[in-house]
């Protein structure tokens, strides 16, 4: 039984008389963690403790992210994909955070695809996903991860996954990526507060990429930062420069450590979506070329290259060779995806319940029979292997 003794009551605690004081966000100082400045400068003491291979790994993954987005946009333009949401500009934010996660951690992402590859998901399966082939998500699931399409809807699941880890005493964390837009949803609010109230190992990683489709982040909420939203949940927060992969890595590593100890943490990563929201979006309707150009100057890969040069690690990086390798990986994945076998009709019906109920079985059989009897159905339906 919790005691709400009146000794805790403000009547007996710190009170203020005089004019009522408004608590405002000016009462807060929200720092933004940074290791490498935009000009590439940094203090050697601040650099996270990674070895040369890990430093190069980060670069390779960021490059993977960039190349993957470029290739996906391009095959979409060729009509080989339904739609796609590029992550260009967010590579440091995505890779620096995902690099901290362990295989046994759970990961539910918003705009962040490469973390799946980092967990072992074949690139091919990501192409399948964007082609609207359910097997993509099956593959993600095999690696303790999922992509959420309904914005904010995944946060309660992540609270539940974290709770499951806590109950099982597992040494892992459940991580949710979310966007600036997602912070306005009721689902996100209830889930983050729930995780905070229950004290379960959930890590909320918010990529503030400045836009929710056309809505600028400063119209999404009156709050100056998204990090400060954590205080509403009694959860600690870190705000980090999302164009600085080392800062992101360090911030999320520290956050993850706390989370493992049972204290959920919220991280805001300040970044920018350089491309359109998806291939169906025309960003010129809501933002200026100047704005985009200015952000191009904060390219996370370039900043990190400066760092690698300063550390003398750049010499060992054969950028072009890496790009070629990633392109080749993508080519192979695309080829494999193109050969994905046409699925049986039963796929539509089979996974709704463990056992198909009689009415569904009937619908399935009738449909198979119809396709058989009415070959002209083929004029209207075909599997779109390319989305």
């Amino acid at each position, binding site marked *: *039984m919790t005691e709400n003794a009146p000794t805790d009551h403000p009547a007996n605690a710190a009170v203020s008389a005089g004019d009522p004081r408004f608590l405002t966000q000016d009462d807060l100082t929200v720092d933004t963690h940074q290791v490498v400045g935009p000009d590439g400068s940094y203090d050697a003491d601040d650099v996270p403790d990674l070895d040369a291979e890990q430093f190069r790994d980060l670069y390779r993954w960021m490059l993977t992210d960039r190349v993957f987005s470029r290739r996906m946009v391009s095959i979409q333009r060729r009509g080989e994909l339904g739609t796609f949401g590029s992550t260009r500009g967010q590579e440091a934010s995505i890779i620096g955070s995902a690099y901290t996660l362990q295989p046994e951690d*759970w990961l539910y992402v918003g705009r962040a695809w490469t973390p799946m590859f980092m967990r072992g998901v074949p690139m091919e399966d990501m192409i399948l996903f964007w082609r609207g082939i*359910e*097997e993509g*998500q*099956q593959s*993600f*699931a*095999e690696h303790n991860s*999922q992509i959420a399409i*309904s914005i904010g*809807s*995944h*946060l*309660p*699941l*992540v*609270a*539940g*996954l*974290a*709770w*499951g*880890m806590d*109950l*099982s005493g597992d040494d892992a964390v*459940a991580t949710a990526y979310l966007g600036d837009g997602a912070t306005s949803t*009721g*689902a996100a609010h*209830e*889930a983050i*507060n*729930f995780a905070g*109230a*229950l004290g379960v190992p959930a890590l909320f990683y918010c990529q503030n990429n400045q836009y929710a489709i056309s809505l600028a982040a400063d119209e999404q909420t009156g709050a100056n930062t998204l990090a400060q939203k954590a205080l509403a949940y009694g959860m600690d927060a870190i705000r980090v420069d999302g164009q600085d992969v080392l800062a992101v890595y360090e911030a999320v590593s520290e956050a993850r450590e706390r989370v493992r100890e049972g204290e959920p943490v919220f991280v805001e990563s300040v970044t920018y979506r350089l491309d359109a929201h998806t291939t169906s979006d025309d960003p010129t309707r809501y933002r200026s070329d100047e704005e985009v150009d200015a952000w191009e100057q904060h390219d996370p890969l370039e900043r990190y290259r400066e760092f690698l040069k300063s550390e003398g690690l750049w010499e060992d990086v054969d950028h072009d060779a890496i790009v070629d390798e990633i392109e080749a990986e993508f080519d192979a994945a695309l080829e494999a995806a193109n050969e994905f076998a046409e699925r049986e009709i039963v796929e539509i019906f089979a*996974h*709704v*319940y*463990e056992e198909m*109920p*009689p*009415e*569904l079985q009937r619908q399935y059989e009738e449909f198979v029979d119809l396709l058989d009897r009415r070959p002209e159905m083929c004029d209207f339906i075909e599997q779109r292997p390319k989305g």
Partner: protein
Amino acid sequence: MQATIVEAVNDALHTEMAADDDVVVFGEDVAESGGVFRATDELLEEFGADRVVDTPLSEIAIVGAATGLAMYGKRPVAEIQFSGFLPPAFDQLVTNASRIRWRTRGELTAPMVVRMPYGAGVRALEHHSESMEGAYAHIPGLKVVAPSTPHDTKGLLLASIRDPDPVLFMEPKRIYRSFREDVPEGDYEVPLGEAAVRREGEDVTVVSWGSMMPATLEAVEELDADAEVVDLRTISPLDTETVVESVKKTGRAVVVHEGPRSNGVGGDVVARINDEALMYLEAPVERVTGFDTPVPLLSMEDYYFPHPPRILDAIENALAV
């Protein structure tokens, strides 16, 4: 053991929590206070604060966290305090719980139960009286169960907790305590998806479930004809076969439910009879239902849901043609 419906709920929870360490019970006021209807009484004392948890006032998070727990391998049993407070969590049912298996081709599943008392007649405030199974049963991938007896309540709840798919378990709160019957101790299941024939008869088939069963049975007692009474027990997936076989025998049917008529489950039952037994019908299927209105506040709520004379009237209509 003699038990009421709400006692059967409690007994099922005790039974399954003892049998399976993965079962976790949570919701608003379920732990310390044992639930506003005492359905979760003594669970905290017996199974401890890790497995019986009072949550914040957050229906979205309750249903969503249940789904996440289930994906992680637990067997969550979440309580929504009244059926009128499930709508905030509708999206979690539609978007997540019902689709996890489908979305991942069975790689992940959501074996979870959301329990809630439903229906009018307990003199409560607005939003404490809803019967919206018509909407929930329209969600592919979600099972919807509504027991009407203590025996079935325990057996169906045990089956629901063990079911590999998400189950919305609607408890008929008006009759939570209206009668006791013999309920076996320990473990047994009443399978989901199977209706029960409560009374065999030749002249007319009366289909009902949950909160409306006692009034239906009472009406049938008054009838000058021989009615067969089918208790659906599971609303989705619905046991078409039992209904259709009965109608083929009797040639006449009446469906009785508490929720609004339009787009209610009654219409679906009529449509299934139409599909498979139309030519056996000697009269239109009668629907005896709540009205297409919100449930009146408590002063007039008794007007809303069907009572024996209204049910009897409809059965007599069905027999008169």
